[in-house]
């Protein structure tokens, strides 16, 4: 396996499925680590200083794996006030932040004008990179405003949107999406948004949420779709796999994405729950991470997810294919709503990278080094 990696021959889908199912964890790790050190021979591990700002938690998608969404009439439903938004950005800049990640639910009352105002009000005041609106949001804005995806992206870009986060990809298999997120956009539309964004010169990331009900074939299907698009556009900066966190979610309780139950109504009869109500274990996380590094030979960066895995496993992940520690996450709400909360300081992140044997460096959105520690 390691030899295959060294020769740089591309891994086929069938091989990838076999590796995910059967390969020895340490062999898989070694192959991914070899590839990582070839792509990043300097021995540095990067991170970005940013904050996740969620402008609303109202979402019509109500995915079964998510604990963040609320109905519009829920007592804790919100739309962020402008003053609060600016306060958050001020804090981010004070902490050396270079980027804000703006994402939110699909709120039925917010049209493109809201987003344009939001972006231009930020750009009017701050010199900060806006990484915002994952493909489900872009599509929803396009649909509710009756314009194309490309037009939507062009308008948002013009108003100040710099890059697009890769969220909402979940697993790019419609079989799985039908069960865990039936109202969320299909795989083809997620890919389409990314293709259009890349076409407009915007860089994006790609994510994958695994550990729910998918099979190894679904995971490889996902990796393959991302690799194929990257071959044609080259617009993905990084790949970020993370694992489903079952706490407070419908899926975690054994239900599936009917979305009609949510947390307010009594649940009716449900189809059988996912195979594992515990989510992916550490071993499964590292297997998927390592395979991602091996399979995605055309994506430069792979992120470790300390937010979902904790700092210790994130450190280990740096030897299983990851070369980036993601964001310092001055604020994070979506994973935290599942009850998983690994809050850490920037110092913790720097120390963790160093203790894992790498030189920590702050980067910007497109992976240029800003500061070495």
């Amino acid at each position, binding site marked *: 396996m390691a030899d295959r990696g060294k020769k740089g021959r591309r891994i086929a889908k069938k091989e990838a499925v076999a590796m995910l199912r059967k390969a020895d964890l340490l062999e898989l790790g070694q192959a991914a680590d070899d590839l990582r050190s070839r792509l990043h021979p300097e021995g540095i591990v990067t991170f970005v200083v940013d904050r996740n700002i969620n402008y609303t938690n109202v979402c019509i998608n109500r995915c079964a794996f998510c604990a963040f969404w609320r109905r519009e009439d829920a007592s804790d439903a919100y739309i962020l006030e402008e003053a609060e938004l600016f306060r958050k950005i001020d804090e981010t800049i004070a902490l050396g932040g270079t980027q804000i990640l703006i994402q939110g639910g699909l709120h039925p009352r917010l049209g493109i004008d809201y987003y344009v105002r939001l972006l231009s009000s930020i750009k009017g005041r701050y010199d900060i990179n806006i990484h915002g609106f994952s493909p489900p949001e872009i599509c929803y804005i396009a649909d509710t405003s009756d314009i194309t995806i490309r037009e939507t992206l062009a308008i948002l870009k013009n108003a100040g949107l710099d890059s697009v986060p890769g969220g909402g990809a979940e697993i790019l298999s419609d079989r799985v999406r039908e069960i865990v997120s039936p109202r969320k956009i299909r795989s083809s539309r997620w890919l389409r948004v990314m293709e259009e964004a890349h076409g407009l010169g915007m860089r994006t990331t790609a994510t994958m949420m695994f550990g729910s009900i998918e099979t190894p074939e679904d995971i490889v299907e996902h990796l393959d779709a991302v690799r194929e698009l990257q071959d044609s556009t080259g617009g993905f900066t990084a790949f970020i796999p993370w694992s489903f966190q079952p706490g407070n979610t419908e899926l975690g309780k054994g239900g599936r994405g009917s979305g009609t139950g949510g947390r307010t109504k009594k649940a009716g009869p449900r189809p059988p729950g996912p195979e594992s109500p515990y989510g992916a274990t550490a071993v499964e996380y590292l297997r998927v991470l390592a395979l991602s590094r091996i399979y995605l030979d055309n994506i430069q960066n792979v992120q470790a997810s300390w937010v979902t895995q*904790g700092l210790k496993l994130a450190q280990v992940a740096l030897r299983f294919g990851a070369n980036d520690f993601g964001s310092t996450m001055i604020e994070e709400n979506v994973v935290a709503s599942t009850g998983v909360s690994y809050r850490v300081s920037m110092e913790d992140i720097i120390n963790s990278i160093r*203790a894992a044997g790498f030189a920590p460096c702050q980067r910007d959105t497109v992976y240029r080094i800003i500061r070495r520690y």
Partner: protein
Amino acid sequence: MLARIRNKVLNGRRLSADDALRLFESSDIFSIGSLAAYANGKKNGKKAFFVRNRHINPTNICINRCKFCAFSRSPGQEGAYELTVDEIIAKLRPYCGGKGRLPGITEAHIVGGLHPEWDFGRYLGIISAIRRHFPGLHIKAFTAVEIDHFSRISGLGLEGTLKALKKAGLGTMPGGGAEIFASGVRAELCPEKISGARWIEVMEAAHGVGIRTNATMLYGHIESHEDRVDHLMRLREMQDRTGGFQAFIPLAYHPKNTRIQGGYTSGIDDLRTIAVSRLVLDNFDHIKAYWIMLGEKISQLSLCFGADDIDGTIIEEKITRSAGGLTAGHLTADQLAHLIRKAGKTPVERDSFYRKVRVYG
């Protein structure tokens, strides 16, 4: 560079202190991990163990005030507590077929502070009361540090103390209090605590009266790699003499609320330490990746790096918690079995002597 070590392991030859040091200093975690996994496979096959246990800490009042400890209190200090025998029995009862019955346990794990006012009878009374109320429950209790203390307050000497405890119902002993044997480190970390040599003396006495024990090493604070190697070598020598150790448990230092500067150990160091322990301690049957201290994620991964045991259900944990432990207080038997299964191993629930209680399919 590890070729010579690899050869030794594959041929079943013992590693030297130099080899051990080289392993601690190597960044080739994949080679070290797979060698350790090989060494473990020869001893335990695909089996990985857990136990249904409950921890009880009778008191946190302690005359030793070790700098790395966030659990201990002085008498009268805020947060100081002492449990009565009745309270201890009440904590165990729901897990031993009592009223409000919960999933059962097979082992009580009891360690606590060296209380300045408790006499030996009080400690002995805890053991005999548990034995009386729950005759089927295995009692694993008291570190070498506590035994040394008892031997002094009882005037019975080491052997007399151990025999009295055994007669009262003590079955096995945990391996705590070993910390790092090297005297320089010990003087810095825990000057009041018994020396490394005394720890070994107590354990030899325990093995001598037929009490099997574990052994531990607290790492990731101020010790050097040489200190770790020294620690492992001393344990291996003693095990050659007595054969009384069941499991070795490397304990990752936790920094919160202690008086030692420093951070958490890295996940990579944790895995390497597990693996090196497995390779060096060739006369120990079991290497335990204690999930309370490593976290369930690193603990599970350890099963691919040479460990064969992840401890148990625990139910209530105070010592690691006090120092910033990040795990939940307990895991169910099903959760433990799930972690083991997903590491590609066969989950075996064990008793306190590593005999099979139940294999989880």
